[in-house]
């Protein structure tokens, strides 16, 4: 199973270059797409989900060109858009049944079985008879997962699903995602590095329509190992520091002193102290430098 994206390009009528020669090959497992707001993640996700067309390039899933043959992808696709609503006055169970029919589950008993499973998996069984429009944010997001599972998909696309969830809901959500993502391709976009760390076996960092980095999280960490330093300085000295070093992040410590994380290819001496590298550092370095 493989999703291959080649030379994908999209320029919006207002001139925004949303995708610029995107090339990616994604296999089974959780794939994290990391990038700031406006990086082009959603455009890429929607394009894969057959909701919009690129200007150039190809996407193939298991060697089928999905730009020409959308239906064959849609049959295997589970998609959770960044934002979605539901029909008013419909309960979760009825709505899932409705969607399952659209997804081609013709047998009534099988549909019932799958709807129950999806509800159970997303822990919505107890509230399945209630109207989805009255759900809280986390419940609605879990409903989103439930609906994407209805056709037992091979390719799952979830677009920034954890945004706005409280920590518990977020944790729960990631767990569900992990449970389902074992035997299929899951593409998961987020701007929260922590999600990737917890979940993904593979990742890419995207900005301004470009894929900046593409690696496994553990490999990313390996690449910046021993290159991250911290230093405590007065806040007023930060601009000077920025001129000399690659500053990744600053954090107030107390009074007007800040702790600054710095990336350096060369070994630095005190007061710079070596720190253990994390994925966030990798993300910031990529955004700052375009690559690591």
């Amino acid at each position, binding site marked *: 199973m493989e999703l291959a994206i080649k030379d994908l390009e999209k320029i919006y*009528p207002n001139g925004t270059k949303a995708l610029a020669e995107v090339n990616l090959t994604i296999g089974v497992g959780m794939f994290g797409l990391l990038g700031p707001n406006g990086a082009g993640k959603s455009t890429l996700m929607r394009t894969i989900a057959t909701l*919009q*067309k690129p200007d150039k390039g190809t996407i193939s899933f298991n060697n089928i060109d999905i730009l020409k043959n959308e239906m064959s992808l*849609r049959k295997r696709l589970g998609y959770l858009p960044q*934002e979605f609503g539901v*029909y008013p*006055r419909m309960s979760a169970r009825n709505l899932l049944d409705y*969607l399952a029919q659209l997804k081609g589950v013709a047998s009534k008993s099988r549909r019932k079985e*799958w709807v129950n499973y999806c509800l159970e998996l997303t822990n919505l069984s107890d509230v399945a008879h209630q109207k989805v429009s009255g759900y809280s944010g986390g419940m609605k997001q879990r409903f989103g997962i439930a609906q994407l599972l209805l056709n037992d998909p091979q390719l799952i696309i979830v677009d920034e699903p954890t945004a706005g969830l409280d920590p518990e809901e977020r944790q729960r959500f990631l767990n569900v995602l992990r449970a389902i993502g074992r035997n299929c391709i899951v593409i998961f976009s987020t701007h929260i590095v922590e999600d990737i760390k917890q979940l993904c076996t593979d990742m890419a960092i995207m900005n301004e329509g470009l894929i900046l980095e593409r690696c496994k999280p553990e490999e990313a960490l390996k690449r910046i190992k021993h290159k991250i330093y911290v230093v405590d300085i007065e806040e007023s000295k930060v601009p000077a520091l920025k001129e000399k070093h690659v500053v990744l992040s600053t954090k107030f410590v107390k009074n007007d002193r800040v702790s600054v994380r710095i990336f350096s290819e060369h070994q630095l001496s005190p007061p710079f102290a070596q720190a253990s590298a994390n994925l966030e550092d990798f993300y910031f370095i990529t955004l700052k430098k375009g690559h690591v």
Partner: protein
Amino acid sequence: MFKIIFTEELRFWKGNFLPYVFFTFLFIVCFMSMWGMASEEISGPGMTIQNSEWRLYELLTFLQQLIIFFVPAIIGHSVYRDFSSGIHKLLYAYPIGKYNYLLAKFASAFIVLLIIAAAMGLGLFIGSLMPGVNPDAIDGLGMGRYLKLYLWILLPNLILVSAVVFALVSQWRNLYLGFIGVIILFVLTKILGAFPFHAIGYLDPFAEVLSNLQTRYWTLTEKNFNAFPVDTNLLVNRIIWILGSITLMIYTFRKFRLHHFTDLSKKRTQSQKINVSVKSDLRPPSAIRHELSFSIKDQFHTIWRLSNIDFKSIITSWPFIILLLIGFIMVHIQQRGMAPQHGVPILPTTAEMLRIPMFIFSGIFNLLTFLYSGLLIFRDRQSQMSGLIDTTPQPNHVFLLTKWLAVLKMQWVLLSIILIAGISVQISEEFYQIDLAHYLFELFILQFIHFAIWACVAMFIHSLIPNMYVSFIILLLIPVAVLMMPTAAEMLDLPWLGESVLHFNLVPDIYVGFTYSDFNGYGSMLSTYVVYKAYWALGALILLCLANVIWKRGRTFTMRERLQNRRRNVRGTQGLLLMGFFLLYLSMGGWVYHQEHHRSRTFYTQDEEDQIYAENEKRYAQYMGMVQPRLAAAHLNMDIYPDTRDFHLKGNLTYVNKVDQEIDTILVGTSFKDSVVIDMKTPATLLHKDHQIKYALYVLDQPLCAGDSLQMTIDIQNHPNTLFHDNSRVNTNGTFITGQIIPTLGVRHAFLKNADKRKKYGLQDRTVKELLPSDPALLGYEFFPNNMGRIEYETVITTSEDQIGLSMGDLIDSGERNGRRYFHYKSNGPIKNSISWISGKYDMKSEGLIDVYHHPDHHFNVDYLIEGAQMSMAYCEQWFGPLQHEKLRMVEFPLTEGSYASLNGNMIPISEVKMLCDIDHEKNSEYNHPFFVAAHEIAHYWWGHKVDPANVKGGQLVSEGLAEYISKRVVEQRYGQEVIRKHREKEQNMYFEIRGQKADEVPLNMANLDQQYLNYVKGGLCLTLLSEYIGEVRFNQALAKFEKTYRYKAPPFATSLVFLDTLRNAVPDSLHYLVEDLFETITLYDHSIKSAVRTDKWLEVIVQARKYRSDAQGRRQEVNEFKDYIRIGLVDANGVEKIEWICLDQGLNTIKFKVDSEIVQVVIDPDILFLDIDRADNIIMVQRR
């Protein structure tokens, strides 16, 4: 704060295209209508002034029906746009007061609405100033009139609609509820319109009931020059509704909350306790991946099941339920009081229940179809669910057809309202001949096709236009535009616009439902309907395919991208299908066009008919005075074939020269509809044959001297019937063919009357001689068919085995021959020339000399017919001598052939409608229409047959007027005074109403043949009045004398002039003015009692007497001096009425009566005899001093 929001709102509307579209649209419609109508209007007595207050009222209220549907898009949108954009979440947290917020929203939107509404007045006003308008048809600038109508009518109505829409939208934060609210108001006013009473008038939100009550009897002159009536009733209505609107607004303002959610009290799902870990023991069911199925069969199942869900979402929403209830009430009301015959309701047969005014209903059906298909199509996007839906592996047509099917199901629900309401009416009236199959066929097949086609259009337009409310309004306009096409074709002189192949979803001649007879069902119109609807259905399928092609799915950003998508969509099977439908549609259109234009056709369009009339005058008016021989004997064989719907008439006609003048030229006019072969047996040369207007001109080798006869044989049959054109007069059951198919001699008296049309065909102002009763040359001809005396008649009518053939004369032989039945009739001596043949399946009831042939199911009123006939016969025989015939046959004919009754010798054809009148059999104490009709027809044997007036103006006073008089007398005898009084009042109202619509009223002695409201209604009323005032005996004696003088008399025949002379001789000198008032002028009265005061022994009554003379257009002039006698009724406490005679001078009269009993009420003209324009002030309660 108010100012900030207000100006921002105005700025928003300034940049929004909708107000401009609405404004331009209304302006153009009004401008064009006014300009067009005022240019077309011809100066003269019948002219309508186009900017009179009444006319402007009519136009503005008509367009108001349209503008109210703009209100949600403006007023509703102003609040709704904050919810829909989500900005309310920010905005409502700002320190803005809700009153400021709402008021600013409402005020700014209302200003926009006012500007849009102003487009109507502006368009009409500018239209009236354009070059080319007839200055006579425009009465000054009339600015004040516009202002008055805006202030009294339009503005309060708009305030109300706006308040309702604003309340609904801001309360439920849903724009479509605004539209539903408007539809409900719209339906409500239509329901109220069915009750023309003042009390209802107050409740009518648009005050139409009141205005109609005030103007319903207005004559043309009054419509042209009277001010629009503003009285206290209207004022009260306006105050009620403005206060209502304000209350609603205040309520809305108070109830409104600056909250995010629609309704905080609504239960939201409680957040559950979160179990962070996923159940480890949860095993997925066996993989479904490989079971997914998208076969055509599955697709159909999916479409059906999903459409049920969409359908449920419509019918379980409360706005729809409310609409359904209101609709049910409306249908119920309509079905209860439909098509009354002279105030008598029709039995609730299934056909009758289905005859509800589909015109209004189809409007409402369309509104809902357009609205709900929009809601369904936009539902995915509006609820932001399209991301989930669009990525499902279903082709576009699954979504499209799901929604379409859901709308169709909604239409089934709407149609079943008519079914349920109809059956409930039938059951509640204890009428159990419920024909379920008929209901289902008409509603769910015939009507349903029509609405399903509109649903396809709705699907297409809603897919095409990205704004649901814009497409909704466009959809509203489409049917209106289609309906207007024939008119536009005429006004703009673009004949191609009038082609029926272009009038989408219309079937020629079937606008408003079907006519259905128990005899022959829908008749031949059914096949035309089916063919046309099949053609439109093809067109609709194309639209549905196109909707599929342009179906919006996913995101597109440029036009190019969209076009690419569409191009991709039309590749493959879809493109082929589309192409196939398109070719099929075109070829079917071509075929329909061809059929309409080229096949043997016996149907003439209005234009063709006008042209024939014009040519008749141009080519043949020269023969107007030419004397022709007259029919003296007819021996005819009529073969009727109900199965193939053909007929064949063969026989000999003998014409005799009945005047003392040689005749050498014969002008034979033949039927337009049939194929006619004439063989002159008398030697003659054919000079000329006119195929267009069916004349043949012969010159006789030997001129006919007085008493000589002319022989001809005729052979007439129908052209073959085609799918579109019904060329035969034969029905499968209930054939009714009249003698009109027999050739006529002389020029047909068929000329264009309308001044406008005469101009169009290059005719001068009326050169054709008018049929004046003072013209001695005309007095030798009777009413149609212009005969001179009676004829010998013999006919053999053959028909299928299961039918009975009927004609006039005595049945001398009947039997079966070669599997067909024959009936041989022969007149016993000369009989009036009024031939017809009937064939059908009948039951017969015989009593005395009367046989009634009726449809086996229509036995309800047979006894009343017999009773009416017998009583009328007894009355006439008592006064005017014995009946000519020994056998009378009353025969029912299908309502598709008409709703009248007539007289053909001793056969009396009576329409099915009369047989279906709903008479209360138990009480039978109300006016009984079948009884009346029978009495009327029987009276014609004396007045119409024995005394047959000349075919000149006023002649029908002697036939129809007296038949009405006698039948009223008989009704009074049978049913008593109260019933006949009520009936007279009803007839007076009918007269006032009809004269208001016409502009050609003449005195009774000059009434034209086609002025039924004069000949029948007014004639009967006035003759009754005179007989009441000089006494029944004296009056009838005068009639008897007249009858004796003119009974079967040779020419000159009777006229209104000699008839009135006879009457005048019977009338005492003191009442001579009555003859002049009633018959020689148009005289109206407006008597009123000002006061009635009682002292011990005396009752003093003050009466104001007013009498008017009116001209043809209803211009009134008061008569200044008169001395009229009138009866006055003094009613005592026990309800006993004492009649006194009084004499009135013009103006106020004080009359004193010596009374010994307790008089409580005084009524002037208690018998309701005089044509009093306001009867409300004819009655007063007595006061005691």
